[in-house]
Every structure is written in C-alpha cells, then in structure tokens.
C-alpha cells in the first residue's frame, strides 16, 4: 500500500520533469533557425497592435484628454502598445501541430509511450511562456524608460502580479482551447479554417483588435463572459492601475478558473473520443 502511495505521489513529479524536459527540447527547436526565431518568436503578434497605434495616431476627432466616455488618444495608444507586449505571452494556435500529426498518422507513436500525449503541448506551453517572458520583460522595461507616455510601466507590483496571474491563467485556457480545436482533426478534413476563425473571434473578444474603450457597454459586458477578455483586455488595464479592473480581479480569476475546468473537460473528451475513432494511417 505504501509503495502504491509512493508511486502515486511520484506520478506528478515525474510528469513535471517530463514537461520540463519537453520544454527544453522545444526551446532548442525554436532557436534552431535564426530567421524563423526572430520572425516567429520575437516579432510575432507585434504588427497588428502597432498598426492599430498608427490608425489611432492618424485619426482625427479623438480627444487628447479623457472624454466623458473614457476615450482618449493617449489611453488608447498606450493600451495598444501594452497589448503588443502582453499578447506575446498568450499561447497561440500555431504553437501546436496536433492536427497535422493526426492527418499524417504520426500520433500513433505517442499512444505507445508511457506518458500522456498532453505532456508535449504542456512542454510547449512552458517553453512559450518562459521564452516570451524573457522577451517581454526587458522590452517593457526599456520602452517604459524611453517613452513612458506611450508605454507606461505597471502601476505597482501588486497590479503587475495580478495582471500576470490573469494572463497566465488565460494563456492556459488558450492552450486547452486550441488543443480541443486541433483534435477536431480526428473528424474533419480541414481544421485550419476553424482555428483561424476561433483566433479572429478570440482576438476581438480579448480587446486585442480594438481597445475596449471603443466598444459599446453591452458588447463589453458580453465579452466579459469569455476567457480572452480576462486574458488581455483586463490585465492590460489592471497593469495600468485602473481601479475598475483591480476591483474585477476576483471575478476574473473565478471566470478563468471556470473556463479552465470546462476547457480541460472538453479537451479530454475530444481527445478520448478522437482516439477511439483514430485509424492510425492518417485521416
């Protein structure tokens, strides 16, 4: 009995070691091609928010100070600049290649290995967070020193910690969400359309396309039921020290925790059903 209990206790520790080892290998893989590394890891997701900054700066009619509806040029631009940084921590669909592996019949080999397949996506998640944090932290520090008006530093340590907590929880939700969508390859001939569609909706709901201050109240309330909203839109405002965002922190954690549970169940269900359907020779 004691031996069984010890074996059971060793399980999570063993899985954690495997995840870390997978993360190290993933790191070696992404660093293997220099051009690809710079374009995919360093500059990824920077274009869209920066284009939005150009749009805002070239718009006429935006008040310089905060207007009655909370809209101001400086707030909007600063929000998008910080989005460009924070969004890099969010796990994205192209970090996974599960659907390709299903289509080509490569996942078979993982079924024979003495660990769950999810160790590999979890390793990629850890690698992604560590690498992107190593890029974002110095970039945010440098930008906030060079141009504090357009890229303000976090208001204080507690705001930064709360924002980071939401981003990490939300990023884990994205991992599970994209895993479930990739696993639809067990049934569908084409998955990339579903992934792109989901990504576009998530970007819009997460305030990564347009600053939330431009969205009507009802739209904001609707988006607050979704995990992308709490992954980027709220943490960015929280880091800026917005009192409303600070007050919403507990609601954000609760919402993301609920999504995390729901998406874990969904991913497990899709994976289990898909495995039963999988023929092993490519779909």
């Amino acid at each position, binding site marked *: 009995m004691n031996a069984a209990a010890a074996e059971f206790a060793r399980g999570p520790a063993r899985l954690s070691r495997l995840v870390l080892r997978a993360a190290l290998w993933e790191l070696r893989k992404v660093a293997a091609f220099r051009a*690809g590394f710079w*374009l995919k890891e360093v500059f990824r997701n920077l*274009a869209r928010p920066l284009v939005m900054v*150009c749009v805002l700066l070239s718009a006429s009619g935006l008040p310089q100070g905060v207007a009655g509806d909370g809209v101001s040029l400086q707030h909007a631009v600063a929000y998008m600049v910080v989005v460009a940084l924070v969004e890099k921590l969010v796990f994205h669909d192209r970090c996974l290649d599960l659907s390709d592996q299903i289509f080509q019949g490569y996942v078979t080999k993982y079924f024979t290995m003495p660990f769950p397949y999810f160790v590999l996506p979890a390793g990629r998640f850890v690698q992604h967070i560590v690498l992107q944090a190593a890029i974002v932290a110095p970039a945010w520090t440098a930008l906030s020193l060079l141009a504090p008006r357009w890229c303000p530093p976090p208001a204080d340590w507690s705001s930064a910690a709360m924002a980071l907590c939401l981003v990490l929880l939300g990023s884990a939700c994205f991992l599970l969400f994209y895993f479930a969508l990739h696993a639809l390859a067990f049934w569908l001939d*084409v998955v990339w*359309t579903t992934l792109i569609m989901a990504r576009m909706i998530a970007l819009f709901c997460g305030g990564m396309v*347009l600053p939330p201050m431009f969205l009507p109240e009802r739209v904001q309330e609707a988006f607050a039921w979704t995990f992308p909203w709490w992954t980027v839109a709220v943490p960015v405002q929280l880091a800026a020290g917005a009192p409303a965002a600070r007050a919403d922190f507990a609601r954000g954690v609760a919402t993301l925790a609920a999504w995390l549970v729901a998406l874990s169940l969904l991913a497990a269900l899709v994976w289990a059903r898909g495995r039963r359907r999988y023929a092993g020779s490519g779909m």
Partner: protein
Amino acid sequence: MSARFESAWGKLARHARIARSYASIGIVRRAQFRTEFFSQVVMDVVFYGVHVLLFEFLYRHVDSVAGWSLGDVRVFLGWLFLSDAFMMVWMSHAWMLPEDLKNGNLDSVRARPVQPAFLYMFQKFSLEACVNMLIALGWLLWAIDAHPRGWSAVDLPLFAWCVLMCWMGRAGIMALFATVEFVLVNGELSRVLNLLAVDVNDHPLDVYGRRGRAFLLYFLPLGAMNYAAASIWLGKCGTVEALALSLFVPALCVGAFALFARMFRRYESAMS
C-alpha cells in the same frame, strides 16, 4: 511575329485549360466534404465581420482616419475582401510551399512545361471561396452604392480594371513572398510575410504617413493587393499616380511570377 503571337496565345490557352482542370477537381473534392465547405465560408464571414465591426465601432469616436471617412473605409474593405476572396479561391495552396519545398514535393512542378508559380500556387481551387467572393462583391457594391461618390455605367470599365488590378496585385505579392522560401529554407518566411501583409494592409496605407505609404505601395508593394484599387476608385490618388499604379501592378505581377520561375531553379528536390 505572327508565330510569336500565336505562341503567346497558345501558352495563355494552355494555362487557362489547366486552371479549368484545377477548378473542376476543386469542385469534385469539395462536394465530398460538406462540413469543411461551410467551415471555410463561415471563417471568411467572420474575417469580414471582425473588420467591419472594428471600423464601425472606431468611427463612433473619430471623424476620419488619415483622411478616410467611414464611407471610404467601407469601400476600402470591399476591395480588401475581394482581394482576399481571390486568394482563397485560387491561391490557398501557396501556404504549403515551405513544407513542400522542405520535403521535396515540387518535382512534378519542375517537370511540367508551364509557368511554375501558376502551376504550383493555383492548384487548389476552392469552391467555397466562390461563395465568399460573392459576399465580398455584394459588400463592395453596397459600399460603392452607399458612398457619396456613387457610380454610373461609365464607371464600369474602371470598376473592371480595379478588380483585375486587385487580383493581379494579390497574385504578384504572393508569388513575390514565395520566392523568399527558395533563399531561406525552413524559415517559413513566406507565411510570416503573408500574415504581416494581412495585418499591415487591412487599413488604408495613409495611416503610415507619406513615406510609409510610398514604402508599402512601391517598395514592399503590399498596397498592390487592394489599396491601389481602392484609392484609384475613390480618387484618393491623382491621375498621374493612378496611371502609374495601373502600369506598376501588372508589371509587379508579371515580374513576381518570372522571379519565382527563376528562383525555382534553386530547388534541389527531396529534403533540400
């Protein structure tokens, strides 16, 4: 002279026959996968919806963006959707170039006596994207009709030319970006550049200032995909620039396809 003309006509006819074959194969293939058919149609509708909502919400707070009114931007989006739909109908296979190049799957393209960029990139005709093309065309016609500029029968040749420019510009840019793969294998640079193009080009180029606009229109010519057509249609550029763009975009398309054919000689078959 006559022989040369016939030869050119013969080449064109051969490419048209290949395009027709690709289309019929695409229709048969898609008839077998109904879920995917609707999935792609819905995906592009979401793409259109996100862009429309972005500007509709933004213009509640601003008067204009870089001199473009809401009506202008609606027309601009119509050209963007039309250009995107063309890519989805004919050129979605260009996305596979990095893998096909790496795995040495291009031998069959090398062995055929036709333009390699055309043969490779146009091979996956998408029937579902034709539905999106109709939606895009519907949006464009609505936006043009609702715009103060309006239109009449006299504008039809200009409209047809702008549509052609839009498609030529998209084909040229995709061929141009694809050539990068032959230089830096494994970098997936064409994919990154195409994604970058989507992000940078889905707003009027005037938002980047005069120099940024010139850079993105003539040097890294993303504007050839839809901005050129939109600005000519709306009269945002002068007559001289409109004429210059009308020469530049077709030249870009021909030049990019020729460059692809030249770079294709670097392809070294399996696992290069």
